[in-house]
């Protein structure tokens, strides 16, 4: 075999969504060479571009606000489990990032007075969320950062390069190994630092709202490199994902912005409001937090009070058409193309896997416990505790991305370029072995990786999803472990083929199954209900469990541990902080 293509950089950034692109800009600004790669296309894959509307930030344009108020709301939503240092960094620096994006002409919506518009979102005490009309926050943000990346002299970027593993020697990162999607060829990359910015894990669930590449890559790569994870039992379910009628060309999260702007009424199958029965109020306004609303919809469904397609109704029938048009302009026409007229009929909505609160454990400089390995964006665990506030995900992508890039660049003087081809050999050998056990590309009448993916998604949705029991979790864990051990090993993807999605499926499944195992294990071990982790057999929140769960990898086996919650050093009052 000829030597693989070899690249060199100071900082390799894996994943080119909001966090990865911001990291590249910040790394270059800090004087480092950055290589930004994505297995999809730069800025197009990932979750950032899917963002419909809200970005939470205490810029105080709509009404007086301060980042410590934002922090207080974030900590409250997190049900006691937020890493206070990360949450404080997120809230303190979000205004800088949002104003920087403004200078880069992202186009935040503004009122006639020239001030940024900010809307109220569930769990926030103030009108705090900026956005780009109409439902265009994600595309606008992605385009703005793509332009900044393209203008950075020290930034190289490669689309269609899937990173398979980080290369580590003696507890220190030396680079990574990837595969070029177009021809399947291996690529080695020497780097002094690696920033994992590959997003979350929502692809593990049958009903999800994210792009296809969110299969837990960053978590799995971090684990295999020797870093640890935190809060893996807390994937977030967005309560009102679109369910019916079938809608194309729109993200299933789209009803979120409709509720921000217009309120709307959430009704069960009997056309009754029900959130009040679960301890929150929601009538006509959008105030109930995500964990409670998801739980309430599921419970109504279980009680036989669901909508026909298996969810709840969301009604805007009481809102005049001119008001709908003023708020959403051309989106109303896109709905009409789908046969939806909000003035005449309610739509059906249901919970959908949306985000992961858990992830790679980092310190306030975004460093993992492996020297030279950083994480950014949704890949980071801890900032949002057991339940994320609306609007914190894009803020987190910007803030953690910028911090990871800035700190990695600062740390470079203490990191050595120490690439050794021998360290990459096991990863390259694994890829070669996978290809050599391959079947010919034209013998394909068995949907191998596709079937395994579907089974995993159904299993996670049914048994490791929104409402959990010890029995269901244990059953799921058994099957996940068998899939990791037996089914994955039996897959025979075609060997050398252009755009070989089955080889990528194998790596995606390897990551997804490992991460699924950590979620099931952590969910079994957390013997209480809290935030997004709801155990029907253990329905109460227990103060004993106000601590974080960690995961490390021993050989191939995930190992759980507990740690005390990192609290913010001291939460300053707004008056103190302003001084």
């Amino acid at each position, binding site marked *: 075999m000829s030597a693989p293509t070899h690249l060199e950089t100071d900082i390799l950034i894996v994943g080119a969504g909001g966090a990865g692109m911001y990291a590249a800009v910040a790394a270059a600004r800090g004087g480092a060479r950055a290589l930004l790669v994505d297995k999809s296309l730069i800025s197009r894959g990932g979750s950032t571009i899917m963002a419909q509307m809200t970005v939470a930030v205490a810029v105080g344009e709509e009404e007086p606000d301060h980042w410590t108020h934002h922090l207080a709301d974030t900590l409250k939503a997190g049900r006691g489990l937020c890493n206070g240092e990360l949450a404080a960094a997120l809230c303190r620096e979000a205004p800088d990032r949002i104003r920087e994006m403004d200078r880069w002409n992202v186009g935040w919506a503004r009122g006639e007075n020239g001030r940024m518009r900010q809307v109220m979102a569930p769990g926030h005490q103030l009108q705090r969320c900026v956005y780009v009309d109409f439902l265009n926050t994600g595309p606008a943000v992605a385009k703005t950062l793509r332009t900044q990346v393209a203008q950075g002299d020290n930034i190289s970027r490669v689309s269609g390069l899937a990173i398979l593993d980080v290369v580590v020697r003696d507890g220190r990162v030396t680079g990574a190994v990837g595969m070029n999607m177009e021809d399947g060829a291996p690529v080695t990359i020497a780097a002094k630092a690696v920033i994992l910015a590959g997003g979350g894990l929502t692809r593990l669930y049958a009903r999800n709202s994210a792009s296809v590449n969110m299969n837990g890559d960053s978590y799995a790569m971090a684990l295999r490199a020797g870093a640890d994870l935190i809060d893996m039992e807390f994937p977030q379910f967005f309560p009102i994902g679109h369910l019916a009628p079938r809608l194309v060309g*729109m993200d299933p999260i789209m009803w979120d912005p409709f509720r921000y702007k217009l309120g709307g009424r959430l009704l069960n199958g009997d056309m009754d409001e029900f959130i009040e029965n679960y301890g929150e109020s929601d009538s006509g306004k959008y105030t109930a937090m995500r964990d409670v609303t998801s739980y309430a919809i599921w419970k109504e469904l279980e009680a036989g009070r669901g909508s026909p397609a298996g969810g709840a109704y969301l009604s805007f029938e009481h809102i005049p058409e001119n008001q709908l048009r003023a708020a959403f302009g051309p989106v109303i026409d896109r709905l009409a193309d789908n046969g939806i007229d909000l003035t005449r009929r309610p739509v059906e909505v249901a919970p959908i896997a949306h985000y992961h609160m858990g992830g790679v454990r980092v310190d306030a400089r975004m460093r993992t416990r492996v020297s030279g390995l950083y994480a950014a964006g949704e890949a980071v665990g801890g900032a949002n505790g057991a339940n994320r506030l609306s609007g914190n995900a894009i803020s987190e992508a910007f803030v953690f991305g910028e911090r990871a890039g800035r700190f990695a660049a600062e740390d470079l003087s203490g990191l050595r370029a120490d690439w050794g081809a021998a360290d990459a050999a096991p990863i390259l050998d694994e890829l070669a072995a996978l290809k050599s056990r391959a079947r010919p590309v034209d013998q394909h009448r068995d949907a191998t990786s596709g079937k395994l993916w579907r089974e995993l998604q159904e299993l996670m949705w049914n048994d490791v999803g929104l409402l959990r029991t010890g029995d269901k979790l244990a059953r799921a864990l058994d099957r996940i472990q068998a899939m990791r051990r037996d089914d994955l090993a039996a897959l025979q993807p075609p060997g050398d083929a252009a755009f070989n*999605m089955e080889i990528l499926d194998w790596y995606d499944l390897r990551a997804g199954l490992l991460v699924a195992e950590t979620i099931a294990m952590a969910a079994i071990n957390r013997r209480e209900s809290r935030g997004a982790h709801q155990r029907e057999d253990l329905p109460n929140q227990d103060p004993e469990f106000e601590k974080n769960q960690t995961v490390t990898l021993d050989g191939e086996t995930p190992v759980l541990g507990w740690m005390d919650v990192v609290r913010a050093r001291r939460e300053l009052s707004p008056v103190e902080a302003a001084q």
Partner: protein
Amino acid sequence: MPETVTIKVQRGAEGEILHTEAFDVPYCQGMSALDALMWIRANIDSSLAIRYSCINANACKECMMRIDGRTQYACTARLGTGGATIEPLPNKRLIRDVVTDIVPPKETLGNLLGGIK
């Protein structure tokens, strides 16, 4: 409403003999061409090469292909009861099946290596 529709897909890579393969796919009203291609990958043939990321939102703009002779995004092209014929973009270099080279030139490995591409 038919139970299944036939989806004809162009198969083969750059430099190979190209052929058309037909798949019967369960039909439900309102489904998109991408729904059908994803169903084929999940249930019949995982080796089918398609390029997509955001699945349903028409945000990533990666799934552009030729559907019944018209260039469209597969995620917003609704399937009729007569099925569809799906081909790669005619004006882009073919990679395999319905995947073409739509990567911006400055984002390719070849560009980074200074090679010709």
